[in-house]
């Protein structure tokens, strides 16, 4: 099954105002840069974005915030972004903050057909407000529901024409769960190869979870906190 589309415009066709999108990445690591640029160009608005972070002012999902394209962010951590802060404090932007592990598991559950699960994370905090509490092994847990999205947009290192994906290092992060939880999942990859080229033993995301795949034209891969030690 050939899932290859030629460019981001074809890959993202069908995304319209008001949709819910999952966007992979942790900080600026492993984000689908080319797809985000395409979303800016399309000008779709009132989006609900499920993504661990919200980018920085001039990169990543920060670009969508600049254009006021996002109505609601569902994330675990949203610092490092002045425009985000302004929109949140003025009430223009709705923000739902979720513990990071719960966010990952809610995406996984959404893709795995599990409607909800109990977790100890957030019990006794404001995250637990309005949620069912149940004791397991003498410990309180809260009920968290699955998340799905109209479109999930992920970034991988290598992909093949069948949509099989391999991620690199910590650029994997939320991408595999989000790939599972999209009604339509779009993968942008650095290297796109014919089916049969990648070793099936090494595949992280099987192609069944991916509907469209394209090769990103360029990847800036901006580093948020460049931290080095001197050579001597």
């Amino acid at each position, binding site marked *: 099954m050939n899932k290859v589309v030629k460019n981001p415009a074809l890959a993202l066709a069908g995304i319209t105002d008001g949709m819910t999108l999952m966007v992979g990445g*942790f*900080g*600026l*690591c*492993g984000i689908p840069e080319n797809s985000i640029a395409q979303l800016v160009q399309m000008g779709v608005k009132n989006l609900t974005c499920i993504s*661990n972070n919200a980018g920085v002012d001039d990169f990543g999902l920060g670009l969508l915030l600049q254009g006021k394209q996002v109505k609601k962010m569902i*994330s*675990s*951590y*949203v*610092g490092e972004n002045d425009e985000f*802060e302004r929109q*949140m*404090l003025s009430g223009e932007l709705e*923000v739902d*903050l979720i*513990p*990071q*592990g*719960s*966010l*990952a*598991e809610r*995406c*996984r559950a959404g893709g795995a057909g599990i409607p909800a699960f109990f*977790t*100890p*994370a*957030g*019990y*006794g*905090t*404001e*995250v637990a407000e309005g949620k069912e509490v149940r004791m397991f092994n003498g410990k309180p847990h809260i009920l968290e529901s699955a998340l799905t999205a109209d479109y999930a947009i992920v970034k991988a*290192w290598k992909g093949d024409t069948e949509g099989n994906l391999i*991620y*690199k*290092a*910590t*650029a*994997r*992060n*939320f*991408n*595999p*769960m989000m790939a599972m939880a999209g009604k339509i999942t779009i993968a942008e990859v650095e290297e796109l190869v014919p089916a049969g080229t990648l070793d099936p033993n090494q595949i*992280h995301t099987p192609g069944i979870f991916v509907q469209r795949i394209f090769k990103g034209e360029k990847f800036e*891969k*901006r*580093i*948020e*906190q*460049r*931290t*080095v*030690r*001197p*050579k001597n």
Partner: protein
Amino acid sequence: MALDKNGIAKRIAQELQDGWYVNLGIGIPTLVANYIPEGIEVEFQSENGVLGMGPFPFDGEEDPDLINAGKQTITTRDGASFFDSATSFAMIRGQHVQLTVLGAMEVSQNGDIANWKIPGKMVKGMGGAMDLVASAENIIVAMMHSNKAGESKILKACTLPLTGVGCVKKVVTELAVMEIKEGKFYLLERAPGVSVDEIIAKTEGDLVVPDIVPEMNLN
């Protein structure tokens, strides 16, 4: 004299045990990796998806695809592995990580911790902190004893929105090492040259003080 951040990290590093998997939070906890006692092997987990973190890369060798949860560029050691965020928190929730070290704005004598939100100020989010404190068997908090206004952060009850309840077992500050049990702080050690009276004065929560409080040994 009160410890500096490195001193706190050095004292916490003494708690490490051979063979442990350890998650270090942002700030002082990150410094713990610099003081691993000799003869002890531990592996550091970062919740964005890596086990076996090594030192920061040499200038010019940084890889944008390889970062820690603080978004800093890192390296890996031999035997390292990468995984997705759900697997990462399975390690944490499933209690496969033996020790979590994290910072705090406040802790209370029943082990509650607050470290993610100050109402009325910009809220950045809890990241992985709530998952970490809810599940870790062994949590050490690295923090300063008082805030900039001189008010104690070692409290009877937290005033800020909570990150987790009844989860902190040990606190290391610039002044003292304290254990939390049975709803009280127990003073275990004091920083070199710091008096018990100073610690008592700067602790708002109930503090149990034994007859002899040894000085920390940081050598």
